[in-house]
């Protein structure tokens, strides 16, 4: 009997401790983002307390300076395109890996994931070595070409999750009804994969948009946003960085909503379906 009375008490205490820890943990995780946004509106050049007043001047600085905005433009050109290219290449590859049994399939699917496991610092040096030999270094095109390499694994991983959930019958049904393989691929498999493809594009875009080291090595005089922020930080530390950070944060909130709608259901469904398969 004593145990039965004991247990709820310790359990309740553990619960309270859990909530306190959650509160502190999320505080740690979200504090930098929160203060980045907040202090983009703070009057003083050196962000500290007490609060000295609200202002929008750092946004004006950002607009008039132009360096960071130029880089933001570069990033907004390169990242969506690299993500799109990686997603298209990744879709076809995951389709083939998912549908066909062939010698070396396992090895190939591992090989196609490997690029994301190699640290970007090493890939950056490696890319620069090759690209500078063929005079493709120092431009946005170089960033595009190299980012696609590290994004293909992301795309393959996510699209494969979605394709694995597809009942094989529906493709076979399409063939039986007279569709060619290509028709079945584009009219049955592709529509089914849309959530995976969209999730893959979003995640790839985020990776590319945030990628620093490879871009630092290969982008030259057309820096992407993280590279421009890096060199900006070496000379001036002012809340213009908070302002651009807030703008990026707004973009990522939009992305997050996309992820919430596409990616998380995808992951949770796959877990649910694997559990069903087990039982």
């Amino acid at each position: 009997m004593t145990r039965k009375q004991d247990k709820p008490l310790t359990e309740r205490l553990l619960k309270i401790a859990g909530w306190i820890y959650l509160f502190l943990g999320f505080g740690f995780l979200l504090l930098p983002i929160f203060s980045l946004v907040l202090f983009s509106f703070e009057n003083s050049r050196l962000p500290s307390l007490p609060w000295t007043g609200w202002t929008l001047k750092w946004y004006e600085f950002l607009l008039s300076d132009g360096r960071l905005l130029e880089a933001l433009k570069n990033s907004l050109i390169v990242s969506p395109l690299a993500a799109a290219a990686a997603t298209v290449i990744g879709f076809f590859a995951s389709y083939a890996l998912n549908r066909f049994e062939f010698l070396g399939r396992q090895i190939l699917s591992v090989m196609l994931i490997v690029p994301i496991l190699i640290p970007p610092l090493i890939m950056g040096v490696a890319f620069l070595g090759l690209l500078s030999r063929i005079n493709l270094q120092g431009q946005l095109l170089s960033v595009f070409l190299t980012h696609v390499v590290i994004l293909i694994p992301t795309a393959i991983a996510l699209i494969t999750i979605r394709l694995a959930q597809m009942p094989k019958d529906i493709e076979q049904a399409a063939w039986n009804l007279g569709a060619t393989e290509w028709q079945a691929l584009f009219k049955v498999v592709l529509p089914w994969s849309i959530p995976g493809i969209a999730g893959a594009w979003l995640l790839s875009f985020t990776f590319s948009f945030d990628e620093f080291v490879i871009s630092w090595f290969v982008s030259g005089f057309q820096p992407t946003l993280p590279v421009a922020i890096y060199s900006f930080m070496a000379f001036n530390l002012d809340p213009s960085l908070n302002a651009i950070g807030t703008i990026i944060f707004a973009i990522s909130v939009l992305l997050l909503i996309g992820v919430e709608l596409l990616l998380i259901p995808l992951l949770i469904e796959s877990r649910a379906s694997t559990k069903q398969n087990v039982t």
Partner: protein
Amino acid sequence: MNALRPKVLTLYQTKAPNEASSLRLICLAPAVLYDSFLFLLPLLFLLWIGFWTVDNYRPVPGFSLSNYIDIFQQFFSRSRYAYAIIQSLWVSSTAILGALLFCYPLAMAIAFVVPVRYQRLAILLAIAPFWSSYILRLYAWQMLLNKEGIINSFLKGIHLTKHPIEVVFTQVGTRIGLIHYLAPIMILILYLALQNIDRTLISAAKNLGATSWQVFWRVLLPLTRTGIVYSAVFGMIISLGDVLSGIILGGGTGKSIFGSLPLFATMILNEYAASTNLPRTSALATILIFIMILVLIAGTKLSHAEQ
């Protein structure tokens, strides 16, 4: 029904397209070709360029050991690469330990304390930092932690400290940046590992009289070991290759118990920025690859040994 089955099967077989091999080839070709030319080729090139020399600021193809000889001669003097490697291993491994100690309880709290229908929201919040820019998060930490920064001015304001706490430009700062960077992914991995535990095992342990501590130590921890090892090895590789946290929060040569030494990754980046000597940088990167392979081997050995 059984009589129908063979018929259906043959129907599938006859109707299944037989041009399979060409479709397979066309679907796989882009990925395979792309990765061959822009992934394998650069990596092989990297290994090769390490043996090139530089003449008049231009890389000269060849096969010379001069880069490696020079690097190993400076292992303990001048550039002191060995010290940087030790600093890297020390900072990364302690950062990973810190990250695990921070993330595991948080993943546990999300899995067991947060009501099921809010767990998705909690996970979404936990991985939110991951979607914002890493370099700007580090800038934000610098703004929070520096000598006259937000936290120090706050602590001074409420008269808690007289002297500012110095975190920025030490390796403690580097670790905070790394932990904050790795936490979202590690929390997600550990949460999924905890979610996969069969809940009946936990209640069975409790019914058999296990205390909460025993449930944690004997049920949760062993069953999530794979998740822990994965996230630790993964975090270690990322930390060893990370340059930003060591530069922005560690100030390049942050202080640790080993002294004010740069991380090896930082060194590679800064050397290239200063010299643009690609063959030498390639040789240094090759050494980093070997260190990482050693870490991977050690990690897998460790996880097997524990079993």
